[in-house]
């Protein structure tokens, strides 16, 4: 019992209980911890504690060579490793002034969008599980397995893809990509449809998500929100549109925005983004097919990567938001400093604001809707 709490909401009755949630808690993804001060079930104050998965990635990066660090970036956001790889590669390419061939850029786009679908699927699925709806999770995960199969058959790993190289990609898309993709596409759509049927207009689901942990656009920008969580607040910001990279300016797609920035909007934005990703992949593959078969996949890159001294920051729109890499080089073969700007790190720090005055059940819903990935949160 906390004898001297600071009442911040209208539920003051005198006695408050401190409830420690996590790190080993089913809703806390294994590594997050929130210490809450509750009045009954109402949260007076939440204090997230992170660092339970701090593996020293940035320090490790300073001790590895530029190429060796690519596999480490897989382990940042393990739900979608490919945007992490590409983001890092783009940062080093920017530092060295390398122009990546168009064909490689298209392959990157296709793979990144597949990863985006996979990431959103698992996020929506887990959101359902945390709200007690188990079944959509299973529907989504089956399709996710198929995406994993594409990854695996493309570069040999399901999860930690180590996709691409500095200066391009290492391999072309296999010949039967189109076949596989045409087979996968309706399945992804169908799983999404079924999920929507089970959830979107379900009264209980709406009650549980609409208006929960709503956030205004100004607050969101002030807290450094990016990605679906920012778009759910009504800010139309997407690095793919605003700072186009990898030929994203050539594709026609929409950026969904929400209104209230609540759990429902985040869920809905993610659902729509999956559909848009499918559109992007279709267009990218069309462009890819127009390329000559022997178009280069790699720019000319020296064998040992030793970028000139300098420091650059390069970001892309990962499924969670702006994922940036700051790379500082001293001219040697090891990066001098690698700073990762993980999207959910900025989002999760607003967590006390998001859940203040809500119930414990809403804390769970809010957390899963933010899609906090401990790997990139703690690094």
């Amino acid at each position, binding site marked *: 019992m906390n004898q001297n709490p600071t009442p911040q909401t209208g539920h003051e009755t005198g006695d408050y209980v401190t409830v420690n949630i996590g790190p080993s808690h089913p809703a806390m993804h294994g590594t997050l911890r929130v210490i809450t001060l509750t009045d009954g079930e109402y949260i007076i104050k939440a204090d997230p504690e*992170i*660092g339970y998965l*701090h593996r*020293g990635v*940035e*320090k*490790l990066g*300073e*001790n590895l060579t530029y190429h060796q660090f690519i596999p480490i970036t897989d382990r940042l956001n393990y739900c979608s490793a490919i945007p992490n790889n590409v983001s890092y590669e783009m940062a080093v390419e*920017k*530092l060295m*002034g390398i122009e990546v061939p168009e064909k490689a850029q298209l392959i990157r786009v296709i793979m990144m969008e597949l990863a985006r679908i996979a990431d959103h699927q698992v996020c929506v699925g887990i959101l359902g599980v945390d709200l007690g709806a188990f079944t959509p999770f299973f529907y989504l995960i089956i399709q996710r397995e198929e995406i994993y199969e594409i990854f695996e058959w493309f570069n040999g790993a399901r999860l930690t893809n180590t996709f691409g190289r500095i200066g391009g990609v290492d391999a072309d898309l296999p010949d039967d990509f189109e076949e596989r993709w045409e087979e996968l596409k309706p399945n992804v759509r169908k799983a999404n449809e079924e999920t929507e049927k089970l959830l979107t207009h379900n009264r209980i689901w709406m009650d549980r998500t609409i208006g929960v942990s709503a956030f205004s656009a100004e*607050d969101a*920008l*002030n*807290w*450094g929100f990016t990605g679906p969580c920012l778009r759910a607040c009504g800010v139309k*910001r997407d690095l793919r549109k*605003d*700072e186009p990279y990898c030929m994203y300016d050539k594709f026609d797609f929409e950026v969904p925005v929400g209104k209230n920035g609540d759990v429902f909007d985040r869920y809905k934005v993610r659902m729509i983004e999956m559909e848009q990703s499918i559109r992007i992949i279709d267009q990218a593959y069309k462009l890819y097919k127009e390329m000559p078969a022997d178009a280069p996949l790699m720019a000319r890159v020296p064998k040992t990567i*030793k970028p*000139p*001294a*300098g*420091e*650059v*920051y390069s*970001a892309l729109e990962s499924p969670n938001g*702006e994922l*940036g890499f*700051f790379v*500082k080089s*001293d*001219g*040697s073969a090891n990066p*001098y*400093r690698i*700073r990762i*700007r993980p999207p959910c*790190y*900025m989002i*999760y*720090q*607003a967590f006390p604001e998001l859940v203040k005055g809500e119930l414990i059940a809403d804390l769970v819903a809010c957390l899963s809707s933010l899609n906090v990935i401990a790997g990139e949160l*703690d*690094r």
Partner: protein
Amino acid sequence: MDLKKRVEQCLGPESLVVAMTECQGDVSVEVPKRRLLEAMRLLRDTPDLGFDFLSDVFGVDNLDLNKPKKKPKKAEEGEGAEAEEPKEKGPLPPRFEVVYLLLCLERNERLQVKVRVSEDDMEVDSLTSMWKAATWPEREAFDMYGVRFKGHPNLKRLLMWDDFPAHPLRKDYPLEGQGEERHLIYED
């Protein structure tokens, strides 16, 4: 008008620019440590700059870069770094720097703002009053480098546990640690 000139115009008259560099299109400006908040406000509120979004805050340890005298001794690995720091002659430049990544949402321009922090005065003004987004990154910079942020509401370790003795991202801290043990015994 390109970004560099605009920043120069905005901060120059107030003599807020210590140095300015550009690397592959990324403009970075170094401002005096004492007047960080002032510079940030100018950058945010000047209409033709409008850097209203704080993307990230982090520290950099320049310990290795600041050791140019040792370079002749280990000539075999002194490759490529000659462009960086032949200028240092007298006292070493401040060891740490804190980098702020700013973003203008309207024009999608990015700017790096730096302050240099020397080892004997590790205090920097906190930006939490301007951007809430600085809350955790500043805590992390404190955790990893020991830079203290004045005015931060809750400056304690973020990633390492509370009684961790060192600041792990400093360059003189070994990658595999110094054998810090986590106290495993718990009371029931």
